[in-house]
């Protein structure tokens, strides 16, 4: 009997990929909820690592008719001391009751592992960048290559054999180049021919055909075609993200942490949409400075609070390095809301005249102490200023946050798919 032994290991993998995608599609809302929940518990820097999520099995349940209860009979191995007629006490999970439970009971929550991409997709799904209109085709590193038909000259490596042969065939037919069979036929006819005259005639004909076939080559340099490629500019959208933060003494570690989380989310989000994302960190007390990330979050600083200084710094940096026609500019400002009273007017003016016109999006995040509900307190000076601006039509998004777990919902809220991001917002 013949036995076939087959090595299947090299077969393409991922046979279950399609089913897996169907499953994810179907469980989308559940998985999305789980992803958000997971991401709240995680550190932001791990937030996009993918990994295990748990969804309630309920929604993905495959029901079957199952029976339960009633009197049960079972035969078990390993009797040591029982004799017929003994009674065993029922204890909640008595040893005697440990006989196989129905399969359905054992998995009430469903855990599985998402890949990094799946995770990020679900995480950022249904979020949309506000105002994507201003995309600039940057000059650098934007060349792509794509097929663009055929050409008569080129490198031998690019010869298109099928096209060349096709053309050669067309040419041979058009010029009536004798086929091999025709010549063979004629030769056979000559061999079989008796009559001398007719034979000479045929030989002459054969000579003509042969000459013609020599004259008309099988493949002419004329036929040769090369695959043509051309370089095309690829639009590369680039974005810069300004992180503005108040680091004056009134900002606690907790508040900074909230702000940091928000910035991270924004970064991840922009990174998904743009090839290039630059980040500029500007921290301010009563004067502003551009710093690196480490200093931004952890460097000690103290002093009063002048928001206008940060806006002024941002304006200058934009003017020097980020031409608004080349860059999509995003800005997010985090603060506890304090601002010296006298600064209000200048801040408002800078924002409306200089900053907002060049920004795609400007978000203001007011962070509060944990536990204290930010919404009960009277509005801070900055909040009321911004609210006034917004009410007069300035494209501003603003939210208040005091708990770590609120960050994602707020972020989600700000970037939800909608007609335009600059609509009325806020509680």
């Amino acid at each position, binding site marked *: 009997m013949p036995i076939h032994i087959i090595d299947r290991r090299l077969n393409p993998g991922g046979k*279950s990929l399609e089913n897996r995608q169907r499953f994810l599609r179907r469980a989308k809302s559940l998985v999305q909820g789980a992803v958000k929940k997971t991401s709240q518990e995680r550190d932001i820097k791990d937030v996009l690592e993918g990994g295990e999520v748990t969804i309630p099995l309920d929604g993905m349940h495959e029901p079957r008719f199952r029976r339960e209860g009633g009197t049960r*009979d079972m035969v078990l191995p390993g*009797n040591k001391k*029982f004799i017929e007629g003994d009674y*065993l006490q029922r204890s909640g999970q008595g040893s005697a*009751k440990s006989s196989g439970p129905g399969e359905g009971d054992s998995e009430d929550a469903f855990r599985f592992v998402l890949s990094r991409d799946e995770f990020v997709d679900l995480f950022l799904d249904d979020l949309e960048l506000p105002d994507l209109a201003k995309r600039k085709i940057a000059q650098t590193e934007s060349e792509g290559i794509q097929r663009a038909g055929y050409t008569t000259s080129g490198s031998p490596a690019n010869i298109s054999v099928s096209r060349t042969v096709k053309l050669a065939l067309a040419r041979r037919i058009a010029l009536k180049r004798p086929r091999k069979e025709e010549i063979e036929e004629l030769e056979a006819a000559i061999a079989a021919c008796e009559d001398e005259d007719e034979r000479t005639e045929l030989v002459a004909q054969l000579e003509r055909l042969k000459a013609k076939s020599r004259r008309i080559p099988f493949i002419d340099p004329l036929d040769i075609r090369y695959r043509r490629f051309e370089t095309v500019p690829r639009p590369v959208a680039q974005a810069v993200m300004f992180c503005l933060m108040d680091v004056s003494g009134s900002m606690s570690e907790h508040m900074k942490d909230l702000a940091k989380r928000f910035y991270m989310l924004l970064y991840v989000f922009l990174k998904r949409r743009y090839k290039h994302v630059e980040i500029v960190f500007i921290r301010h007390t009563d004067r502003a400075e551009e710093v690196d990330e480490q200093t931004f979050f952890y460097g000690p600083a103290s002093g009063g609070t002048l928001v206008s200084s940060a806006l002024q710094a941002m304006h200058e940096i934009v003017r020097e390095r980020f031409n608004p026609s080349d860059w999509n500019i995003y800005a997010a400002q985090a603060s506890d809301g304090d601002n010296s009273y006298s600064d209000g007017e200048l801040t408002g003016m800078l924002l409306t005249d200089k900053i907002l016109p060049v920004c795609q999006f400007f978000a203001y995040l007011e962070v509060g102490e944990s536990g204290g509900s930010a919404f009960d307190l009277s509005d801070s000076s900055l909040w009321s200023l911004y609210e006034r601006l917004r009410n007069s039509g300035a494209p501003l998004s603003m939210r208040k946050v005091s708990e770590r777990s609120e960050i994602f919902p707020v972020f989600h809220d700000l970037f939800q798919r909608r007609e335009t991001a600059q609509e009325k917002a806020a509680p």
Partner: protein
Amino acid sequence: MTEHLFEGADWDFHTLQRITDACEEVALKDLGLDVYPNQIEVITAEQMLDAYSSVGMPLFYKHWSFGKHFAFHEASYRKGLMGLAYEIVINSSPCISYLMEENTATMQTLVIAHAAFGHNHFFKNNYLFKQWTDADGILDYLDFAKNYVMQCEERYGRIEVERTLDAAHALMSHGIDRYPGKKKLDLRAEEKRAGRRRQHEEEVFNDLWRTVPKGAAKSRSTLSIERRRKLLGLPQENLLYFLEKSAPRLAPWQRELLRIVRHIAQYFYPQSQTKVMNEGTATYVHYRIMTKLHEQGRITDGNFLEFLGSHTNVVFQPEFDDPRFSGFNPYALGFAVMQDIERIVTNPEDEDREWFPDIAGTNDVMGVLRDVWANYRDESFIGQFLSPKLMRHFRMFHLHDDPEERAGIRVDAIHDERGFRRVRRELARQHDVGYIDANIEVVDVDLSGDRRLILHHHVIKGAQLNETDAKRVLQHLADLWTYDVALIEVDANDKVLREYVVSPRPIPAAVA
């Protein structure tokens, strides 16, 4: 001294070929097995996971639930909660065995003996498989099913197809014919039978019968009910079959989908009834083959010890109070009974002669075993061949747990003279699918009224349906039937315990 088949743990495809040839020699000559042609495929762990999620079949239609199983298996495999099987074997002709690439040479030998000869023989010879499965056609059928589902998705939309398949899957356990249907006679045979009947009537004709009083004529309404039920083929326990043939508003492609699911459920039906026997057979066969190869000197002592190590793991039966206990291990039970049969046939004691007069001391081990493998399923196999000696060996006892009983769980019988038969009967019953699956059947359709479909669940031993699940399944059923569905749970005395009524969900207008 014969040459060793392999040395150490490494193998290549020539080694596999040698191993298979050696196993085949023992299987066919010494054990007299009768197998389908073998096809052995070496696969990776990922491919094994793939196979897991599509119930072991090499090709299957696409459905999200398989993705769910895949994700689940993958997660537990990655965490090391679950090992993968060494092999998967498919009841088809040729019989396909999948071997994991990371098995050692010894394990490959074990697995080839186990799957390619043990399972293979069982598939080819057991009456249930012969009756219910078509080994030659199954792969073609799955191919057809896969393409058909794909075409339906293209034509009618993924969501619509998914809805139908979801419903069909929920009813899959009740989409099985449990008894082979009547064979339709062809016309010639029909005519013959009618002729014989007429002849019989003429022979026994007696005019006196005419004068015997008949019972009261049946009322018109009873007659019409009977006629209706007969027309619809009721009562019918194959719910999918009933829907496929009688659901009023299903599209032809939906009926075909139900049919596909039903056929696949039917294909797996014998496997659920023969877990103990199937694994027992395969384990017994691999044990015999491996021992023989070792005796012939074709497997080194070291490799044989490796085999014994994994063999003992496979047939390990934890006791009921062991934390590892999760019911009877089919490998252990099946293997033990078959070895016991070997003992009874070759070396019986008085007790065995009394219990098994037919086979005790006949000395034809393989003859008896081949007969057992061909003609029994788990329930009848245990009911027939579990010997008192084995019950003592496993120290079996029977517990009766009546929730009404205040004193606790009663020990009904143990492995003693008084208890052997009861323990055996009870264990056999535990392996009887007739007892395991809920007994649900379609009993009537209110054709003159609101077309409500009426089902009965015959409750055994007070075990009613899980409510949430029952409602969900009935919802699927109602969606297919497109009118109300009622499920009535009745006990043995026809007392109604509970009644469910479910209405179909409206089909979204966009799709309809």
